[in-house]
């Protein structure tokens, strides 16, 4: 009785925006920042002009190159103990990147395992995973991390383990929801029918299909771990001195900031730019994967 309703045309609200240009520019900026940071981290020993730990009390608080009276030997000046700021900054980059990456590996393993199990098996398993996520979210991260480091003494390994154990929630949430979607797809059903084992299906069908979403989460988590490490080090309960973590550099320079603001501006800007770069890069990845990183 009705005229063939063959193809419903494009509906309102479905228009996609032409913002590729701006998006790809910001992605490239992010990628460049990440690449530079990775380069500094890997080749830190070769790039540092001075020993980052060598104190020279005769050359305390030298100003950076853009200010009157700077020392060409020390491009970014020196800190309150006369240590070369540029060298400490480069070494700090190495520490930030190292912590960011290792923490997100640890938290990734925990979160992805939980999320995939919950999403794949559903039912009781999923209830347990959801409960774990809810519990984890209710725990104040900074406080607990501070307490652990405070009680056990600061070390890099402990810091990574603690943050790794605390930051897996987003991995779990995304792995869980994406696994649920993938589980219901045809080829997974086909694998079921073909009698593949659950483990095989998880490893060969599910994981590769949710990997892109997880990579995006990983970038966010690296950025978050770097910020948290800096905050903990700033509070004196992160990376042990004299290692030049950027957070620790800010903490140590704090007493001089009113007279020499650049001592906190330099490491702060470095931290800010690195985290911004990682986030830009992650956002770009998300767009190009068409992935969601929010639950």
């Amino acid at each position, binding site marked *: 009785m009705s005229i063939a309703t063959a193809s419903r045309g494009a509906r*309102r*609200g479905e228009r996609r*925006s*032409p*913002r590729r240009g*701006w998006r790809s520019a910001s992605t490239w900026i992010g990628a460049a920042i990440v690449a530079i940071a990775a380069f500094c981290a890997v080749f830190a020993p070769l790039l540092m002009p001075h020993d980052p730990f060598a104190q020279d009390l005769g050359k305390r608080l030298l100003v950076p190159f853009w200010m009157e009276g700077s020392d060409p030997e020390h491009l970014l000046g020196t800190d309150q103990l006369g240590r070369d700021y540029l060298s400490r900054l480069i070494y700090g980059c190495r520490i930030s990147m190292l912590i960011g990456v290792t923490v997100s590996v640890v938290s990734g393993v925990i979160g992805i395992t939980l999320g995939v199990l919950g999403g794949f098996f559903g039912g009781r398993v999923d209830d347990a995973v959801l*409960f774990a996520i*809810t*519990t984890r*979210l*209710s*725990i*104040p*991260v*900074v*406080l*607990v991390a*501070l*307490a*652990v480091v*405070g*009680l*056990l003494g600061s070390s890099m390994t402990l810091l990574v383990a603690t943050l790794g154990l605390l930051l897996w929630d987003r991995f779990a949430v995304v792995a869980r929801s994406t696994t649920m979607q993938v589980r219901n797809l045809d080829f997974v059903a086909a694998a079921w029918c073909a009698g593949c084992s659950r483990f095989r299906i998880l490893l060969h069908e599910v994981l590769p299909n949710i990997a892109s979403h997880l990579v995006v989460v990983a970038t966010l988590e690296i*950025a978050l771990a770097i*910020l948290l490490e*800096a*905050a903990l080090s*700033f*509070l004196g*309960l992160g990376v042990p001195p004299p290692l030049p973590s950027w*957070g620790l550099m*800010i903490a140590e320079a*704090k007493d001089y*900031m*009113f007279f020499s*603001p650049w001592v*906190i*501006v330099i490491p*702060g800007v470095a*931290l*800010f*730019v690195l*985290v*911004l770069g990682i*986030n*830009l890069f992650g*956002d770009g990845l998300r767009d190009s994967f068409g992935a969601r990183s929010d639950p």
Partner: protein
Amino acid sequence: MLQFFVRRLIVALLVAATVMTLAFVLTRLSGDLAISIAGPNATQADVDAVRRAYGLDRPLLVQFFDWVGRALTGDLGQSYFFKTPVSALIAERMPVTLTLGLTGLVIALAVSLPLGILAAVRENTAIDRLVQVVALLGQAMPSFWLGLLLMIVFGLQLGWLPISGTGSWDNYVMPGVVLAFSAIPALTRLTRAGMIQSMASDYIRTARAKGLSRASILLKHALRNAAIPVVAITAVQLGFMLGGSIVIEQVFALHGVGFLAWESIGKNDFPVVQAVVLVLAVIYVALTMLADLMNAVLDPRLRAS
């Protein structure tokens, strides 16, 4: 509906119980607490005395159930350092932290809601991109560093605001702004996404077809529906802010609960530490339940089912 809340309550209680266990385990991680309490110069006799005095000579399980039993009656133990009940200490410091958290929340909402709505209405324009850039910058900003910068600029150079202390309202402006920064990106993005989604919905077309004013379309019809996820995230963010205020309290020397916890960690005052962890977790859980309730108020479909 009622059933839903009963189930949420049960989960909340289970979460609280789990956090209690974790907090207890956490403080026992360092091995022999008696040694660390007694201090580096203590003799074996001192340590033994401490152990007996604090009941640390009892089996762990006994200590645990003793703590849980007391906590249920509101007794969170004695502080080793301050020698006063922990609950009194927390109650004394909580107003500072809550004031800080609420200030941060109000600032965050006052910034994010208009920004998110503006970006949604001007979707894909320069304004929209600017808002997204602001969100990205906020997300990358280390809060403690921002706090220090504000202190240099507004505290020292301009002299507009006090650098530390808790005496009056203007002590909370800078810390509140810094705390708000951490919540603004998420709130702005969610408001924007929610507004874009509801502006594209059929009921907004109906509202326009009815000739309603732009303000009524945006604020009455679109925002009401966009607000539903924002409310949930707001509660969660307030929880995160209270938990994260430890850093900012330290930067601005605000003697709130976070500051208390930080001091106590330094002094191995573990009853305080485990109590603060527990209290913050319980507040968070309560906030998420409050968010569910508010969602039910905002979304009549939830109320019915």
